[in-house]
C-alpha cells in the first residue's frame, strides 16, 4: 500500500490532513466516506481492478433539488411507467474498469435500482429504477456521494434521446453478404472449365448471382445514387457521380450480358466495389462519442434554478420559465443562467467558461451580473433583468452563423478532382464509342460500357477516406480530436491563425504572482499570511498558497470589507490587504493589472501582481508558426498584458484588445472576406461565434469531457505546443492523397487500355478492382504513418 497517496483518489496527501482508516490512508473525509460506503456494502473490489480509481466527492448539497420537480424529471427520463423508469446520465469521471464495475453494481447500494449499464466510450450510465421506491434525485445524490457526480445540463432537458444511425453498418453487412456469396458462385466462371455439368448449370448460377447482387445494388449502394443525384442538381460534380454511373452501367451491362448469354457479367466486381467503398466510408468515420462538437450554451446551463417566490418560499423552476423581475437563489458553484442584478451583499463570479479568465471578478450589491458566470462563495440572491434567450451571452447564438447548418465549408479535394475526372471520363467513353461505331456497333456498346465500368473511381474514392481516417486516428491518440475527416483538408488550407488570449495562450489554471514594492521583513510576511488565512476570496487563497509556510499567529479584529479588501490586527499591527484605495496607495495611477495591495500599520508597502501564465512552449510554437502563417491574437481583456505579450510573440503579430464576442466574429469574417483561410483557436463561450465563423475552429480545453464550445476540433490543453505538428501533418496528408491519386489514375489508364481495345473480360475487371483497392489502401496507410513518425522525430519546433 502506498502511504504517500490517497487510497481512494490517488492524490498526494497533505500531512496534516491525512486520515487513517481501516489501515488505509485518505486525503480527505470525502474519500474516506466513499471507502466506508463501499466496504460496508461489500463493494471493496472496486479497488482491486485499478489502483486508486476514485474521485473525492464534491459537496453538491442542494444542487440537484430541482430533480424533485416532476415535470423536470419526466423530461430527463428516457422511459417512464408506474414501476419502471430509465434514465441515461452522463458522468465525466468514468475513466477505468473500476468505474464500470461500481456503476454497474449500483443496485447493491440503493434499493429500487434494478440495473444499470455503462457505456464507456460515451461516458454514460443507463439506470433502470423503480420510481415508486427511489427518486431520481436520490440516485443523483448517491452518485455524487461516491464521487461520480453526473453532468446534467439544459441540453439533456431540451433534446430528446436521438436514435443512433446504424444504416451504414447494415449496408456494410448486406454488401459483404452479397459480395462473399457472389465471389463463391463465380468461381466456375473464372476458370472457364469446359465441363458438361458446369455448362449445364450456368444459367442457374448466373441468375442466382443476379438475385444476390440485387440487395447490394439497390440497398447498399443507394447512398451513392442519392448523393450523385444531389450533386448533379446542384451542378457540382462530386466523386459520387462517376461512382454511381459506373455502378449503374455495370449493373445494366451485366443484366444484358446474362439475358443474351454474352458472358457472366460483372456482378462480382460490382458488389466488391460497393463493399470496399462502404468499408472506406466506415473507416473514415471515427467518432469520439464522449466528446461533443456541437456544444452551445445549453450544455453549460443548469436545467433549473431556485426561485424565491413573493411569499419567500423557494421553488425549483426550469430556466426557460424565468421571467424578468424574478428573484433567484444561486448557490456556491452554481452557474448564473440569466443576466441580472445582484441583491445580496457581495460575491465573486468566475467567468472562466465565458472568457477563459481564471481569476474571479468581485461584484457587490446592485452590480449587473451576466449569464455564464459561476458563483463562488455563499448563497446569493439576484433579480432577473432578461430571460434566458435575451441574455447577453445567449444572444450570440441568434447570429446567422449558428442558424445555418453548414455540413461542408469547403469542397473536398476528391470532389475537386472528380469534376475534371467525370468530364474526361465521359469524353473518352464517347470518343471510343464514336470510333468503334464505324467498325462494329455491338462492340461499340461493349467498349462504351466497359470504359465506364473500369474507370469507376473506386481507388480514387478510397484514397481520401483511408488517408484522412488514418490521420484522424493518429492525431486523436495525441489528444487532438477532430470532428470529422474533412477538418484535415481544411487544416491544410489554413494560412492565418487567430488566437484568443485568455485561457487559450494563457493557461487557465495557473497564475504567476509577482511582488512589487518595499521588501517585507520575515515577521511581516508571517502577518500577511495569517490574515489571508481568514479570507475565502480566490485571490487571497492564491496568494496564501504562494507565500512561504509560516507558523500560526492568532489574529484579531478580522474584517472583510466587500469590494475593498480585508483587514486584521496581528500582534499589535494593523494589516490591510486589498484594493489600491483601501491600502492607501500613494499616487493613484490607473493600473490595468489584477493586483492586491498591502498596507501595514498605515504604511503602504507594495502590491502583488497576478499575471496570466502563458502556456509552455508558447514562444517556441509561435516562432515556428510565424514562418508559415500570419498570426493574430484577439483578446476580450484590456491592454494590461500587452507589453509582456509583445515580447513573447514574433514581430509583426497583430494584437487586438477589448474584443466583444460579436467583434471577434466580425474580425474573422473580415479576414475571410479578404481571402484568408482562417483557423481560430479559442476556449471560452465568448469565442463560440468566432469558432463557428472560422474555417477551422479549434477549441482548447483543460477538460475535454465537459467544457468546450461548438467547434471543428478539440485540442487538449496539454498538447498545445504540438499545434504546428498537427498543421504540418495535415499538409502531409494532402500530399499523400495527391500521390495516391496519381497511383490510382495509373490503374485507370491500364484498365482503360483494356476497355478501349474491347478486351475487358469480367475476369480482368475482377482482378484489377481488388488489386487497385488493396495497393491504394496499403499505400496511403503506410505513407501517412511514415509522415506522422518522421515529423514527430524531427520535433515540434521545426
Amino acid at each position, binding site marked *: 500500500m502506498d502511504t504517500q497517496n490517497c487510497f481512494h483518489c490517488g492524490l498526494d496527501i497533505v500531512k496534516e490532513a491525512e486520515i487513517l482508516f481501516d489501515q488505509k490512508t485518505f486525503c480527505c473525509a470525502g474519500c474516506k466516506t466513499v471507502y466506508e460506503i463501499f466496504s460496508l456494502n461489500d*463493494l471493496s473490489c472496486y479497488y482491486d481492478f485499478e489502483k486508486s480509481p476514485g474521485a473525492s466527492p464534491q459537496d453538491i448539497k442542494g444542487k440537484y433539488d430541482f430533480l424533485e420537480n416532476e415535470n423536470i424529471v419526466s423530461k430527463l427520463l428516457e422511459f417512464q411507467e408506474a414501476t419502471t423508469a430509465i434514465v441515461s446520465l452522463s458522468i465525466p469521471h468514468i475513466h477505468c474498469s473500476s468505474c464500470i464495475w461500481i456503476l454497474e453494481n449500483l443496485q447493491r447500494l440503493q434499493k429500487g435500482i434494478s440495473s444499470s449499464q455503462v457505456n464507456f*466510450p460515451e461516458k454514460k450510465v443507463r439506470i433502470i429504477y423503480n420510481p415508486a421506491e427511489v427518486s431520481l434525485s436520490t440516485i443523483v445524490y448517491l452518485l455524487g456521494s461516491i464521487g461520480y457526480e453526473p453532468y446534467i445540463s439544459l441540453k439533456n432537458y431540451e433534446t430528446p434521446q436521438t436514435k443512433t444511425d446504424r444504416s451504414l453498418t447494415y449496408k456494410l453487412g448486406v454488401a459483404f453478404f452479397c459480395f462473399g456469396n457472389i465471389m463463391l458462385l463465380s468461381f466456375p466462371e473464372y476458370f472457364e472449365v469446359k465441363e458438361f455439368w458446369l455448362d449445364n*448449370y450456368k444459367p442457374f448460377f448466373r441468375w*442466382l448471382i443476379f438475385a444476390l447482387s440485387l440487395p447490394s445494388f439497390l440497398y447498399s449502394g443507394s447512398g451513392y445514387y442519392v448523393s450523385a443525384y444531389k450533386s448533379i442538381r446542384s451542378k457540382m460534380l462530386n466523386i459520387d457521380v462517376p461512382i454511381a454511373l459506373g455502378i449503374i452501367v455495370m449493373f445494366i451491362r451485366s443484366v444484358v450480358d446474362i439475358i443474351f448469354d454474352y458472358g457472366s457479367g460483372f456482378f462480382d466486381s460490382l458488389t466488391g466495389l460497393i463493399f470496399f467503398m462502404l468499408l472506406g466510408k466506415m473507416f473514415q468515420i471515427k467518432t469520439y462519442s464522449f466528446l461533443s462538437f456541437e456544444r452551445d450554451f445549453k450544455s453549460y446551463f443548469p436545467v433549473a434554478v431556485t426561485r424565491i417566490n413573493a411569499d419567500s418560499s423557494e421553488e425549483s423552476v426550469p430556466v426557460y420559465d424565468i421571467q424578468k423581475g424574478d428573484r433567484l437563489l444561486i448557490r456556491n458553484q452554481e452557474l448564473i443562467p440569466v443576466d441580472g442584478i445582484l441583491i445580496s451583499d457581495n460575491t465573486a463570479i468566475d467567468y472562466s467558461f465565458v472568457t477563459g479568465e481564471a481569476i474571479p471578478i468581485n461584484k457587490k450589491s446592485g452590480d449587473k451580473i451576466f449569464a455564464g458566470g459561476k458563483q463562488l462563495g455563499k448563497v446569493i440572491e439576484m433579480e432577473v433583468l432578461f430571460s434566458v434567450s435575451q441574455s447577453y451571452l445567449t444572444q450570440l447564438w441568434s447570429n446567422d452563423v449558428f442558424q445555418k447548418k453548414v455540413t461542408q465549408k469547403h469542397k473536398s479535394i476528391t470532389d475537386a478532382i472528380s469534376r475534371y475526372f467525370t468530364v474526361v471520363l465521359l469524353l473518352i467513353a464517347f470518343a471510343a464509342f464514336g470510333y468503334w461505331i464505324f467498325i462494329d456497333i455491338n462492340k461499340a456498346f461493349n467498349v462504351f460500357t466497359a470504359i465506364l465500368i473500369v474507370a469507376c473511381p473506386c481507388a480514387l474514392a478510397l484514397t481520401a477516406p483511408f488517408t484522412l481516417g488514418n490521420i484522424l486516428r493518429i492525431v486523436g491518440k495525441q489528444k487532438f480530436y477532430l470532428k470529422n475527416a474533412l477538418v484535415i483538408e481544411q487544416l491544410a488550407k489554413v494560412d492565418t491563425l487567430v488566437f484568443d488570449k485568455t485561457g487559450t495562450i494563457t493557461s487557465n489554471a495557473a497564475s504567476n504572482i509577482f511582488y512589487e514594492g518595499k521588501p517585507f521583513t520575515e515577521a511581516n510576511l508571517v502577518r500577511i499570511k495569517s490574515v489571508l488565512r481568514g479570507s475565502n476570496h480566490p485571490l487571497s487563497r492564491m496568494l496564501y498558497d504562494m507565500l512561504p509556510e509560516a507558523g500560526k499567529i492568532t489574529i484579531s479584529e478580522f474584517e472583510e470589507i466587500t469590494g475593498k479588501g480585508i483587514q486584521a490586527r496581528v500582534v499589535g499591527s494593523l494589516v490591510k490587504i486589498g484594493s489600491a484605495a483601501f491600502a492607501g496607495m500613494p499616487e493613484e495611477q490607473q493600473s490595468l493589472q489584477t493586483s492586491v495591495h498591502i498596507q501595514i500599520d498605515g504604511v503602504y508597502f507594495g502590491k502583488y501582481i497576478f499575471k496570466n501564465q502563458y502556456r509552455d512552449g508558447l514562444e517556441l510554437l509561435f516562432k515556428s508558426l510565424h514562418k508559415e502563417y500570419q498570426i493574430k491574437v484577439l483578446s476580450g481583456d484590456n491592454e494590461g498584458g500587452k507589453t509582456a505579450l509583445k515580447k513573447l510573440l514574433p514581430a509583426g503579430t497583430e494584437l487586438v484588445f477589448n474584443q466583444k464576442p460579436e467583434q471577434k466574429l466580425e474580425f474573422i469574417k473580415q479576414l475571410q472576406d479578404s481571402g484568408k483561410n482562417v483557423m481560430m483557436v479559442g476556449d471560452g463561450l465568448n469565442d463560440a461565434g468566432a469558432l463557428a465563423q472560422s474555417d477551422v475552429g479549434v477549441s482548447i480545453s483543460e477538460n475535454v469531457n465537459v467544457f468546450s464550445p461548438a467547434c471543428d476540433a478539440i485540442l487538449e490543453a496539454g498538447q498545445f505546443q504540438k499545434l504546428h505538428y498537427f498543421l504540418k501533418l495535415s499538409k502531409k496528408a494532402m500530399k499523400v492523397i495527391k500521390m495516391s491519386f496519381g497511383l490510382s489514375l495509373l490503374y485507370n489508364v491500364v484498365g482503360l487500355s483494356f476497355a478501349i481495345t474491347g478486351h475487358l473480360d469480367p475476369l480482368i475487371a475482377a482482378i484489377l478492382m481488388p488489386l487497385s483497392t488493396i495497393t491504394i489502401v496499403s499505400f496511403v496507410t503506410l505513407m501517412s504513418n511514415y509522415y506522422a513518425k518522421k515529423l514527430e522525430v524531427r520535433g515540434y519546433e521545426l
Partner: protein
Amino acid sequence: MSVIYLLITISIFVAIAFLIAFFMAVKSGQYDDDYTPSVRMLFDDETARTQSRNHKAKSVNQNTTTNSEKE
C-alpha cells in the same frame, strides 16, 4: 448432379441466417459500444466471489445491514 440445387439452396439459406443474426446483433446495440462489454465480461467472477463471501459472512454473524439483506 441435381443435388447441387439443393446444396446451394441450403448454403444460401445458412448465409441468410447469419445475415439475419448480424442484423439482430446490430439492432440490439451490440455495435454501438465495443469497449464496455469487453471489460464487463471479466467482472462476473469478481461479483460471484464477493457474493459468496457476502453469504458466508451473513451465516457467520447476524450483523447484516439493510443493503446486504437485499442480496
